[in-house]
């Protein structure tokens, strides 16, 4: 298993408490960059800029990945562009929404 795959597995533990769907299936994770010394930079978004769970989800993402063995440091960059859209969701995420 590559480190990227392990990071995505960890990210699946971070659940949006309003929708009860993890951030990967919700399509919130845009990019995961891992440098040679295992410094991780995660670029992500939220479903809406005024999301009340803003801080909780980003700190959850940071903590979940920091816990991974071998990871030296994690930075989470929250972006609003490109804006989140439903087509970024996985089929599993869509299913959980009853679609």
């Amino acid at each position, binding site marked *: 298993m590559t480190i990227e795959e392990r990071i995505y597995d960890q990210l699946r533990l971070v659940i949006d408490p309003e929708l009860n769907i993890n951030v990967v299936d919700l399509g919130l994770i845009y990019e995961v960059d891992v440098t040679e010394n295992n410094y991780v930079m995660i*670029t992500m978004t939220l479903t809406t800029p005024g999301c009340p769970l803003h*801080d*909780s989800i980003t700190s959850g993402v940071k903590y979940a990945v920091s816990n991974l063995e071998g990871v030296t440091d994690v930075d989470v960059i929250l972006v609003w562009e490109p804006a989140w859209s439903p087509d970024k969701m996985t089929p599993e995420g869509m299913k959980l*929404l009853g679609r």
Partner: protein
Amino acid sequence: MMLQQASNETNIKLPVSFVIYSLVAFVASQLIILFAGSQMIDGVFRTPAIWSAAHLIILGWALMVAMGSMYQLVPVAFLTPIWNERFGFFQFWISAIGVTTFAISLWFFPKLMIYTGMLAVVGILLFVFQMFMTMRKQAKKNILTLFVGSALFCLFLTISLGLLLAINLGAGISGLNHLAILKSHILLGITGWFTLLIFGFSYKMVPMFSLAHGFSMKLSKWVYSLYMLGLGLTFLSFFMESRGLLQAGLTVLFMAFGIFVYHILTILKSRLKKKLDRPFFFSLCAIGFGAIIHGAGMVLSFFPTYYTAFGLLIYLYLFCWVVFSIIGYLYKIVPFLWWTHRYSKLIGKQNVPTLKEMMNEELSLPIFYGLGIGVICITLASIFSQLVLFYISQTIILGATILFTYVIFDVLRK
């Protein structure tokens, strides 16, 4: 890429203080109404007990809960932190003491009304100032800013007119059209402040809770412009004593509300979340009730013989539109507040409950049916002057109010 800005979260104690106070005021107001049954049935609304209950429900419950909700929602919806939290706590205490003593003095110590009323007014003014200072920092203003800003302006006008009424009652101001000011005070307080505020936050919360995407916000400008025009025309009609203007004003208000309903429906059509949460569904029902009552107000304006029925319409508007909307949204706001306080640091570390699991959703049904049936029966009891039916229905409403209070306090134990 557009990067995020710093954390905007508010100290949870601030909104929670307002919510707890408001629940106590809600139960107290319903108790008073229960004991003022005969006056309600006789249509004698301008009595000390009913004044006290009316101000407890409007200021103590709806306004305090709206202020608490705004302390939580404004930072997240406008991406702007509250200007000064310590000032917020100070404002809470001034408002709480002011509203409580004002409600008591309205009933038992009318001579003190001017002082206690002043204290309540100061509390509300401090809130308006706090929000003004917060919203002016918002980097990118939008239609929500306009709705919420205008609602705050209406609140400011409402309390200014209320103060004028209190001074006139106490000392008397020559040449003052007391009735026109009283009507404007009610119009701006209920339709101006509450409706514009609920419109504004609905535009944020409906898409958020239904996960709607790709909808247009163009209609919101029409809703805003027409509603403001309707308010202006109705306001003018009171001072010019023009029935034509009143009819025009209420018609335009109904049109604006109708467009709002249509707009919300189009937003819901674009939602991803197929099954909506039950309490949120009740907030949506409240929108339907609001439209019906606006329609009834418009129709009533063409039948001057029945103008006394406006009192009943105001009661229904307060309950079926304002109170139902607030209760529905509180089912979302309170669990979120407590969840953030208890679990936000644990997300990603261990299993945390979902927001839905924080609140007993099953109990939402008896609460809403209790309030709904109670309000319908009170309407019938008022129309047919049935005192026994009034007592039974008001007891049902009181029971539903106590149950709702229990549900909210139960969240705070999780």
